Every structure is written in structure tokens, then in C-alpha cells.
């Protein structure tokens, strides 16, 4: 694939009412360029992952918008795929570099959500769903609640299992200064939090968030980064499924994620057991359980109890049988926050930092291979990337 990451940065995630999308992006791009050790003039194309700028902010045409802001006159475009917009923007950047058309590109993910009323945001997000779901008044918590119920019925998954995902990811976020919720929660707190869509409680759900992330991708693998380590993107796979959940054969799996991960493992020439660290799309706690199974880290029906036992938590390697796999060291969407267009890019940034060994207190020792799993809608789009330290 011949694509390396030269620089990677995320903003603080949270309610950033004092910061505009322009400033969010300027800051993360400046830091990424600084890390990359390249001049801005080396950037030959810009790919912007974003979902809601037009619906909520009244601003489309984000490619030219940010190119102008960054003082670049290069090909630039917005990539939209609901909550997988960021992952798709990375995929577009990888295609651009691996095709040989561009040598160095900038990938940005950005979303500004908290300036708007929650009901406006919920409605805008449902733009990612199917007609029938909108007509029925469904929201994404309701759709994932259906999946949770199905998983509970089929595999005996419990509400406590769901809660353990939130507990783990909040613990990881407590080690992440960029997280929206950098504090721990208990199983009891999750179970006692207000119900959003039964069985999902407030603390089973990822929040509405502002944030941005950026990457500099290049085909040149000569290490120019300050840490002198080469991190390659060795797989970039996308798959799609039906927009609505009603058309799917099974609610306990996301076919798009299964297919994207199979392709990714094939591209990388490795299997799930080779992954040391993963960032998966835990928009709701049930989503992480399903992701663990779709990505073949665990067999069907086995992920919930494994997570509950702490096998994918930092420090979990001592206890478990899952080799090196630690999941959502950033805090996941649940606790680091979910600025939808930025999430897929942030996942790559997190894995990049893990592989170069600069994750501080949340560092997975010896991490050499990482995976990201970014989902759009209720599973209509899935993007899987695999990163490897050379």
C-alpha cells in the first residue's frame, strides 16, 4: 500500500463553545505539519471528513473552505459517510497517495455539534438512517437498543455487560487529557443513569461533541517524523450494507464491518490475533461488543463477558487469553467524545500514537500493529484500517 503517516494530531474533544471549526482545524493541522517536518507547500490535496456542517452550520463546500483557511490552493474535498466520514476521508487519502497521483496529502476530520440543540442534532444525525426509520420516529439510540435487545436475547448478554464497556472506556479516558469525559464511572453508576432507549442508559451512549483531528499521509516512507519511527497504513477497507436495520438478516452483527475487516486482514496479510491495540466504534456500548465479534477478536456471544472480565482493558494482558489486544485506549467514542466527522481520523491518530510509543499513561507496551473500526449510521458503512510499525 506504501502509505505512511508523517504527522497526526487531535484537538481537545468536548463542548468547545469558544472555538470555531476554523480554529479547531487550524490548530490540528499546524501540529500535524510540525510533527511531519514538512512545509505546508508539500501538501498536494486535502480530504475533509465531516457530516453535519451543512445541516447544522449552514456551511458546505468544506474542501475549499479549509483549503482557503490553510492558505492552500490544491485539490480539496469533503467526504461524507455519516459517522464514518472521518474513516472514509482517511480511505480517500490512502487511495490518493497509493495511486501515485499525490505524494503527500492532508486528511482532516471535524465536527461542531454542541452549538446546536440536542433535538436538532438528533434529527440531523438521522439523515444517516433510512426513510422508514425517520418516519417511525426512530433515533440512533433506539436502533442500537434494538441491536442490544437482539444480542441479549440470542447470547445472554446483560445490562451489566453493556455497562462494563462504558466503565472500561471511561477508565481509559481518565488517562487522556483530550477526552470530553476524563473520569472513571462504576457499573452501578451506568446502570442507575437515566434510560435513553431501553436497555441503553445515558452512560451507555456516546455524547454530542466538538472536535477535530488531522493526519499527514505520504508515500515516502523515509522517517522524517521527530520520533524516527515509520508507521504504515497496511490496510484500508470499506464495505456497505442496507441503510435501515429492518432489511438485515441479523441484528447482532454488522455485515459491513465483517466484510470490511475481512478485506483489511487480507490486504495486511495478518489476522485478528496479530492486533495489539484497536480503536473501535463504540457509539453505544453494545456497538463495541458487536465490533469485537465482527472483527473476529472473539467468537459470537463471547465478547461481552470477556470485556466484563477486563481482558481488553489497559493492564488486561496479564489476566486474559486475548494476547496483546487492548481496545479503545483513547476512551472510545463513549468517553473521549464523538464529533462524528472527526472520530474516524481521531482513531487513526490514537493508534499512530500507540505505535510510535507516545501514548503516555495509556500506552500499550510493545504495540506494533493496530486496527481502527469506524461505522456510519447503524452499520450501513464500515471502514477498517490496519496500521503497522515498520
Amino acid at each position, binding site marked *: 500500500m506504501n502509505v505512511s503517516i508523517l504527522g497526526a494530531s487531535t484537538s481537545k474533544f468536548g*463542548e468547545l*463553545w*469558544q472555538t470555531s471549526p476554523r480554529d479547531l482545524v487550524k490548530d490540528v493541522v499546524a501540529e500535524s505539519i510540525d510533527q511531519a517536518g514538512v512545509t505546508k507547500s508539500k501538501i498536494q490535496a486535502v480530504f475533509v471528513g465531516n457530516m453535519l456542517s451543512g445541516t447544522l452550520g449552514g456551511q458546505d463546500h468544506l474542501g475549499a473552505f479549509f483549503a482557503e483557511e490553510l492558505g492552500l490552493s490544491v485539490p480539496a474535498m469533503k467526504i461524507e459517510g455519516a459517522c464514518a466520514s472521518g474513516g472514509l476521508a482517511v480511505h480517500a487519502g490512502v487511495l490518493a497517495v497509493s495511486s501515485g497521483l499525490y505524494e503527500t496529502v492532508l486528511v482532516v476530520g471535524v465536527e461542531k455539534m*454542541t*452549538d446546536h*440543540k*440536542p433535538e436538532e442534532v438528533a434529527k440531523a444525525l438521522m439523515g444517516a438512517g433510512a426513510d422508514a426509520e425517520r418516519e417511525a420516529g426512530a433515533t440512533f439510540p433506539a436502533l442500537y437498543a434494538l441491536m442490544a435487545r437482539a444480542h441479549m436475547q440470542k447470547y445472554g448478554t446483560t445490562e451489566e455487560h453493556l455497562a462494563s464497556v462504558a466503565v472500561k472506556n471511561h477508565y481509559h479516558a481518565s488517562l487522556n487529557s483530550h477526552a470530553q469525559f476524563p473520569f472513571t464511572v462504576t457499573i452501578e453508576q451506568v446502570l442507575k443513569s*437515566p*434510560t435513553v432507549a431501553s436497555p441503553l442508559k445515558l452512560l451507555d451512549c456516546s455524547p454530542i461533541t466538538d472536535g477535530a483531528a488531522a493526519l499527514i499521509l505520504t508515500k515516502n516512507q523515509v522517517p522524517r517524523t521527530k520520533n524516527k519511527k515509520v508507521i504504515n497504513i497496511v490496510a484500508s477497507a470499506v464495505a456497505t450494507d442496507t441503510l435501515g436495520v429492518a432489511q438485515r438478516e441479523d441484528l447482532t452483527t454488522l455485515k459491513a464491518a465483517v466484510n470490511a475487516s475481512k478485506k483489511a486482514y487480507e490486504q495486511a496479510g495478518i489476522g485478528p490475533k496479530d492486533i495489539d491495540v484497536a480503536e473501535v466504534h463504540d457509539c453505544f456500548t453494545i456497538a463495541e461488543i458487536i465490533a469485537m465479534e465482527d472483527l473476529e477478536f472473539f467468537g459470537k456471544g463471547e465478547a461481552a463477558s470477556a470485556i466484563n472480565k477486563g481482558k481488553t482493558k489497559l493492564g488486561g494482558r496479564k489476566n486474559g487469553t486475548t494476547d496483546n489486544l487492548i481496545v479503545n485506549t483513547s476512551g472510545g467514542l463513549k468517553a473521549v467524545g464523538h464529533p462524528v466527522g472527526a472520530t474516524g481520523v481521531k482513531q487513526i491518530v490514537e493508534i499512530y500514537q500507540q505505535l510510535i510509543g507516545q501514548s503516555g499513561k495509556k500506552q500499550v507496551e510493545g504495540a506494533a500493529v493496530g486496527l481502527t473500526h469506524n461505522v456510519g449510521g447503524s452499520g450501513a458503512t464500515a471502514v477498517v484500517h490496519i496500521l503497522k510499525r515498520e
Partner: protein
Amino acid sequence: MSVAIQGFGVYVPKYRIKVADIAGVWGKNAIEIEKSLGLLEKSVAAPDEDSVTQAFEAARLAIISANITPTSIDVCFVGSESHPYAVNPTSTIIAEFLGIGRNYLSVDLQFACKAATAGIIAISGLIASGKASFGLIVGTDTAQAKPHDILEYTASSAAAACILGKDSDRGLATIIETSSYSSDTPDFWRRDGVKYPTHGGRFTGEPAYFTHVIGAADLLLKKTKLSPSNFDYCIFHMPNGKFPRAVAKRLGFKDKQLAPSLIVEQIGNPYSASSLLGLTSVLQFAKPGQLIFMVSYGSGAGADGFVLKVGKGIIQKRKVVPQVDDFIKDKKYISYVQYLRFGGKI
């Protein structure tokens, strides 16, 4: 010349609706709502009541409390965000019925929940400069909320009025110092001709209520060179039961300093009357010489801070008119359907 509150009057309509009854209509968990908002019920104006009738009731008692003739009042200001008329002042209607005469300065004020406290500062200036002898200020609201909006649990109805005059032994409380903190922060608004207000959800918290209340409070502490431990009581605007508790804690006040003012638990948030009703609640127990720290808040946004010293007149004056607890205890529960009818929603 220092200025004092010479008389106080309140009015709380007798009807109440329980938070649990509103929550039940919308399929919400009542216990969760009560816990998250920190209140159990709110006051509701009767179908034949509005901000004018409430203001009149409170002002009438304030004049009795001050023991002055209505015609000695030179200024009549009414603060509200639910003036019944867009054009036609509430202040002249109540002045007419109170018998204030014709020789008075009158104006209606609007600044969300802090219009009345801004009026206190303005009238104090007129009295201190010798332009007026006595001024009447009323905060009154019949706050409306769109059904199923989170505001529906808290937006309530009540009025509070005070007579301001030169400081004297008869005073209820002397105004020692004031402060104000304002900015263009659109956290809550209602455009002309629109029936219900709109709010910015969580934006109403940190950048709005907390920034402005703390801004005014810090300025007040700096101006007076006092610290929270110097005060016997503190009062903060009560949009719900959580915000005043949180802001008091952040500023360094203790629960026992705040608790006597928390009328929100029983009657909700009557907007312009909220912080003043908190003050009247404190004045039911306060002793001469005690210090009170009060900060109001109005969306849009601004906060007014006051340091008040309780006067000797408090002992006598709280005997002559009904106190806020008398109104709070005199209540009759209504159903959600009656609540909709009382508010003209059906």
C-alpha cells in the same frame, strides 16, 4: 446617601403541579427528573391571573410593609418577561390601581430573570442622588414553557415587590454594595410574537449562568473586600435546584448559608421574582445586623450582585404582611390537563 429596602411584598398563586405529574404525561421517570432538576412542584397562575395581577398583589403588600402612603412613591418599575402587553406598560396599570397618583416615573423592564434586580440598582441611584424619595420595584412573571420542553418542569408564576427609600432605622435591609456583569450570550430567548421561549440546552449552564453569576459575585467580593465566610446567608437565581447549589459551592459558600433561600423546591422558577423571593424567604429568619449576599441572573445575559445588611425594621415588618412561606403553604394541586387550560394551551 445609602439606600434601604423599606418594605417587601410577595405573591405566589395557590395552584401547584407536581413534577411527577408532568413527567408521567411524557413517559419520563419522575424520580430522575426530580433528582436532576432538584424540585418537586411548581406554582401555576390561575386562568384569571397574569403578571399584572400578581404584581399588584405583591406591590400592595410592599406598601403596607413599608408603612408609607402610595402617593409618596416617585418611581414605579416592573420587571418581567411576561408583560401581558407588548406595548402598554404593566407599571402604569399597577400604579393606577395602587393609587400612586400621577407624579411618578414609570417604566417596564425586561431582562429575562434579572429585570427586577436591575430595577433595584436603577432606583437606588435615583434615591441616592436625591431625585426620588421612595421607589417601587416589582419582579413578576407567569413563565410559559412549550409542552414537553425541559422548561415545563420549572417555569412557574409569582411576584415579589419592594419599596426602596433612604436608609433609616425602619429599614428591612440596607444596600451596602452592588455589582453587575453582562455580555451578549444568547442562552435563552423569545422573539417578538413567539409564544414560547427557546433555550440553548447545556449552553445555558457554563457560559451563561455560571460565568455571569460568578462574574458578578467575584466583582462584589472584590469591591467589598469580604469573603463568603463573612455572610450569614447567600441567595442565587434559581432556574432549578441544582444551579444555585453548584454556584454557591464553587464560590465557597456553605449549604447552611444557601438553604433558607431555596424556594425553587416548592414553587419552581418564577423568573423575575426568583432571586427576590429567595431574599424574602431569608428575611423571614434573618436578624438585624446579619449580612446577605445575593446574585440574580438573566439570560441574554447578565447578573446583578448585592450585599445587604439586615436592618432593625425587620422584626416589626415581617409581622404586618404575609410572608413567602404563608403563600408556599397555601396550595392546591391541579392535574396536567388543568395546567394546560390555566396556561391557555388548550
